[in-house]
Every structure is written in C-alpha cells, then in structure tokens.
C-alpha cells in the first residue's frame, strides 16, 4: 500500500507580501503586486514593470554576505523558515529530503564591470576605440582573485547549503533548474520519494528573482514580456484577448511534506494531500510550446494516472497561464483535451495575473494559492481577464473569487526548454483519515 503524503507546513514570499496570509488576502481582494520596477533604473528598457517583493524580507543576519550577493536567497530562507515553523519542525531528520527549484544564477553587471560596488581603477586605454572592458579585463581578474573580493558567481545550490545550516543535514539535497517548472518538479519529486518510502519528510519548493538588468533585458530581447508599462495592474492578462506577454515577478514558496500517518500522530494541521504528479518533455522548441500541446497533455494525463483519478474528478485547475499568446492558447486547448466536456464547469485559476511570473518559484507560489482554496473555501479570480481570447475558452474565474468546495485541484507548470510538470492536490477531509 502506498504511503499518503500530506502538507503540514507552508511559507511564502511574494509580490503581495511576506507570509501566506497577506498573500491570500491580497489575492482574494484582487490586488495586483505588479508595478513599475524600483530595483534598478529601468527607464532605458522597453519593459519597465514587474512583480517585485516590496517588503523587507527577514533572514538570519549570519547569512547577510550571501544575500548581499543574491537577493533571492533571502526569499528562500524566509519561506523555508515559515514552512518549518508552521510544521513545528526544528531540524531535519536523517530521512529528510531538501529539494528546491530555481532558474539561473544572478549576474550582477555592476559587479562584473567593477569587481565591486566601488569603481576600481581602470587602466588607461592605449588606442582609440579600444574596448574599455577588455583593456581592463586583467585587472578585473586580479580583483576577483584577491582574498577580500566578493565572489564572482553565487552557485544555485547556495540556498540548500544555507537552509542546511539552519536545520542540519538533510538525507539528500537537490537544486532543480527546470526553469518555470522547477519548483513544481521539486514538489512532485519530493512527493514521489516520500510515497515510495525513500524519505519520511521533505522541505521543497522554489525561489527566484530575475528582476535585475540582465534578467529583464534578456527576456525583453526574447519578446516574451509585456511592455504595457502604463497599466501595470492589468499588464499580465492570462487568457485575455488583449494579452501582450508575461510580466516577471520574484519570490519563494516552500512546503513541508510528511506522511499522513506521521502528521496524524503529531496532531498537525493538514493543508492538503498530494495525490498525483506527472512530468514530460515537449522536445519541440526552446522557447515555444508544441502547438498541439502534446507535452502539456502528457504531463496532465500522467498526473491523473498517478493519482488514479478520472478527468471528471478534477474540480479546479491552476494554470501556468503566462499571458503570452501562444502559451495560453496551447494550454487552454490542452486542458480542454484532457478534461473533456467537464472543462465547461471546472473553474480555472490564473495567479500570474496578480503577481507576474516568478519563474523557478512560480509553481510553488501558485500551488500555495491553490491550497488556500481548500482552507478558505474559495478560489481567487483572474484579476485582469476581461475578454476571453480566441482559443482560450475555459471556465475562468473573473472579477471576484468563487466559492469552492471541490476535492481535487490540478496545477500546471510549463518551462522554457519544454519541461512540463503537473501536480494534483486533494483536500483531506475527516472521512479520508
């Protein structure tokens, strides 16, 4: 008999605040966390809006030198501490899994140019038209090799290392870089590991921020982002006819997972049960989904098989819903294909409409928004949807939250490069215990 895996702790840092409660309250009120970029001077960019974390994010000060290098580490630490505290855990046991998803190392152009925040002495140029950076490359290398220099890079597994400093060694630690599907994969993998008996507990989720000049600029060049800078709150419009691209966001979300038996024994609050996970590859293009949605369909179908559920057993869907033309249309068609006629009365949540695309953290943050559907008895609305786009027909929740008493929610995440992941979470009711 397979072990049942439940969620006993959650933590979240998002553009809507630090903590799960402010996150949910803002979602329920339909408040947008998307605004003009304040982290750097974006006036020279076509894209000038994002879902930034505006509050000060607390973290252990002993890690300040790491957070100074890479701000998203603060999100990871804060969300991890929230989740561990929520689950009343103070340390990892031997049979613990730590699995965090994220996307890319932060490249601080200021640091790359100058070695540090202080301008170092440039060598004078020898010839007219000489490249200043190349001319000074040797002194830049010398700077980084000096003992007191800040590290040139910050490896992506730093978050796992710091979390272990807080809670002790986990049995295994993984840093998943599955792009926009990374944290959903981290959660799904952790679920499978506990279900199979490989681990008894997991801290998993994701953290990310690409809200720096190179991150925003890179996505801008790919044409993936909305430039609706004047209407920030309505810029990210998943499934809307007027959608014009994604909006980047930042944040983190972490979950503590345990077996149902362990959670019951300890008398813990149970937020929900993970019952299905599926993952697939598009094998199509690096930046566009297979137009037939084959990968997305496969991911959803695998999660249903894993959960031993039928399409009609799904009572709500949390979409990937980026607000880009092709992605939304393909996802909507894939959902209709998988759910069959039941799509007409299966409510659809699109959290990115209010917080933007949190890339490696997106799946986990949106997962927590879905979990709140069980606790609060309602699902939040797609905050910017006015006219459903052609091909995007689904039972979208618009204008105001919708009461929800369903049992199973399907959560999609589809990543750059063609990695897809789907989770199914289930409400745990007394009769299930």
């Amino acid at each position: 008999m397979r072990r049942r895996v439940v969620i006993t702790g959650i933590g979240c840092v998002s553009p809507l605040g630090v903590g799960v409660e402010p996150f949910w309250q803002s979602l329920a009120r339909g408040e947008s966390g998307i605004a003009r970029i304040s982290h750097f001077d974006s006036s020279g960019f076509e894209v000038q809006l994002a879902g930034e974390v505006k509050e000060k994010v607390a973290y252990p000060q002993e890690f300040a030198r790491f957070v100074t290098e890479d701000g998203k580490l603060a999100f990871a630490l804060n969300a991890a501490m929230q989740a561990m505290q929520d689950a009343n855990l103070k340390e990892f046991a031997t049979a613990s899994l730590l699995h965090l998803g994220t996307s890319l190392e932060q490249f601080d152009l200021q640091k790359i140019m100058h070695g540090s925040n202080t301008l170092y002495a440039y060598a004078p140029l020898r010839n007219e038209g000489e490249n200043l950076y190349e001319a000074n490359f040797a002194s830049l290398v010398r700077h980084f090799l000096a003992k007191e220099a800040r590290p040139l890079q910050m490896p992506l597994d730093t978050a796992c290392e710091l979390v272990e400093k807080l809670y002790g060694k986990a049995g295994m630690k993984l840093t998943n870089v599955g792009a926009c599907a990374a944290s959903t994969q981290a959660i799904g993998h952790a679920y499978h590991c506990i279900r199979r008996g490989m681990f008894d507990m997991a801290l998993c989720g994701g953290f990310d921020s690409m809200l720096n000049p190179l991150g925003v600029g890179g996505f801008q060049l790919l044409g993936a982002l909305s430039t609706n800078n004047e209407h920030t709150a309505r810029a990210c419009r998943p499934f809307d006819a007027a959608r014009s691209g994604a909006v980047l966001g930042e944040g983190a979300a972490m979950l503590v997972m345990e077996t149902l038996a362990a959670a019951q024994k300890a008398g813990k609050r149970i937020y929900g049960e993970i019952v299905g996970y599926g993952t697939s590859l598009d094998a199509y293009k690096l930046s566009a989904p297979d137009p037939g949605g084959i990968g997305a369909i496969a991911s959803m179908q695998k999660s249903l098989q894993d959960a031993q559920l039928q399409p009609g057993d799904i009572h709500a869907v949390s979409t990937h819903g980026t607000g880009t033309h092709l992605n939304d249309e393909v996802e909507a068609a894939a959902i209709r294909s998988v759910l069959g006629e039941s799509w007409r009365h299966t409510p659809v949540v699109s959290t990115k409409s209010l917080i933007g695309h949190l890339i490696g953290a997106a799946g986990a943050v949106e997962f927590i928004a879905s979990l709140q559907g069980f606790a609060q008895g309602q699902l939040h609305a797609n905050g910017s949807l006015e006219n459903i786009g052609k091909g995007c027909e689904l039972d979208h929740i618009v204008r105001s939250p919708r009461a929800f008493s369903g049992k199973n929610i399907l959560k999609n995440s589809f990543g750059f490069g063609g990695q897809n992941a789907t989770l199914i979470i289930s409400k745990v009711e007394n009769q299930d215990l």
Partner: protein
Amino acid sequence: MNDVVITGIGIVSPFGIGKEPFVSALGMGARVKPGCLPELRETPLAEAPAGLVPNLENGCQNLDRKLLKCMSTAAIIGCLAGKEAAEEASILNRFAPERIGIYAATGLTAARMDSASKMLNACLDSEKKFSAKLFGQAGLKLMNPLESFKILPNMPPCILSIVLGIKGPSMILNPWEGQSACAMWEGLEAVRTREVDCALIGAADTPSSPSTMVYLKQMGFIADDEFPSAAGAYLTLELRDKAAKDNQHSYGVLHEIEIKNGSQQAHDPLAKELGRTYAAAPVLLLAANCLGVTQGHALVCTRGISFNFKFARNV
C-alpha cells in the same frame, strides 16, 4: 527484482569526442595535457592549466545549425555525448519517446567574456560607472537574444531532448558533482519503478571556461595541483530483460547508487588523468568502470556529498 543494465555510453572529454579516445587514453595510462586559455593571458591565470575538448567544432558538424546558435559549449558537449549513448543503445528504435526520461546535471553557468565585453562597454556612464539605463538603451542592442539560451542551466539537457525527440520525464539539477550523482540515482529509480522504460542519465560541464576558472580559483574550489576540464558523459539505463529480449549489448548491471550527504573533502579518482570535471565526474567514473578502464567507484563531491555505486561489469 529485475536488474537495471547500462546499454549505451557517450563521452566527450579532453581526450576527444567519443568513448574510443577516452578508453584508449586511459587504457594506456595517459593523462590530459592541459593548455592555457588565451582569454586569460595577461591575467594572473595566464599559465593556469585548463582541459579543453579538442576539435569540438568538428563534432558540431553533426548538429542542427539553427539549434547550434542557441547552444553553449556545455550544450554541445552534452548533445554529442547523449547522441552517442542513445545511438549505441538504439533507444529511439526500441522505446517510445514518451517512455524515455532524461535525468541530468549541468555545471556553473559560464558567461562568455568576449560576447559580454562589447555589451558591458556600452553601459558605462561619463564617470565610467555601470548604468542600468544605458544598458537598457544601448547595451541590450549589442546583446544576442540567443545568449539567454546559452546561460539557462536547463538548456543543455532540453536541447538534447529536442535533438533526440525524447518526450518522457525529466529532472535537471545543478551545479556540482553531487547533483549529477543525484540525477543518476533518480534515473536508476525511474527505471526500477517503471516510471520510464529507459533513462538517459548524464551531465556536461565546462569548468575550464574563463569566468568559471576565475570563480573556482577565487573560492578555492580547485586545488593548486588540480586543473579544470570540460567534459560530458551520458549513459542509457534499461531493464535487463528488455535488453536481453532485444539482443541489446549491455556493459553490466548497475545494482546501486549510494549518496551520502556529508562534509568530506572533495576527491575525484579520475582527476589526475582527466582534470576536475565537476558535474560530469560521477558519470565519467561510472562510464570508466563500464569500459573497464578504472576500478574506482567512490567520489567525494565539491559540497561534501559522497557518491558510490555498485556495478557488476559483464566480462
């Protein structure tokens, strides 16, 4: 319990492209002759040894030209190694694409100094300080949009999935040896639990790229008597019964992968011959065992994770 066997191996190393140069070099007790990076001349690392893959451009001739524009050196190395393994085991003829999974690791992101320099140069204000505004106005115009694909760490295995048409599960981890060891473990479990019929497990890493070399030296992640080497390796795993049914040659049975999260000092038994290959190291070690050119089967990773495997080679 149905055993899991290794049926295909692909290797790209400083000994050359393909497993043949790897086997013959290690079989003869040869060591990589590291060179120096021209990008680092006139720097304190001017004479720092670095292991590079020879004639990599020749290997690129077999890759799709359009995709090649999006590929980092690590992606090229990974693709060549993955293709060699997949072709040897004929996995695309014997398994449905949806039943093949990729479980892989990538290394530290290697930013190319030459492509970055022009862009960064355009972002200096009158006081020679970096200006985000100037970056948006002028720097981005000098940036190739395809560079994004070269720095995202999931891209090398994703490109491999596109090249081979693999549509099953995936897990891509980053950045050190321990993460590829975990990816290998996950691939083994996926075959054992029938989540997939075939797992392509592997890694590619380019620690001898200029920026990564600077970082490794800066942080002391490489000892003075060591040198970094670019390399990649992929292996195909499947159930023994299936391989036997298809008359598919196998190298042996992979009984167990053991991973312990600890804090020991890093040790790679192939480092003397190959250089430190970081994410690629555990895969290369298992491949070297399959090919009978080493007996070592234990590796301590950069973050202290220890990796060990039980493998019974067919003789």
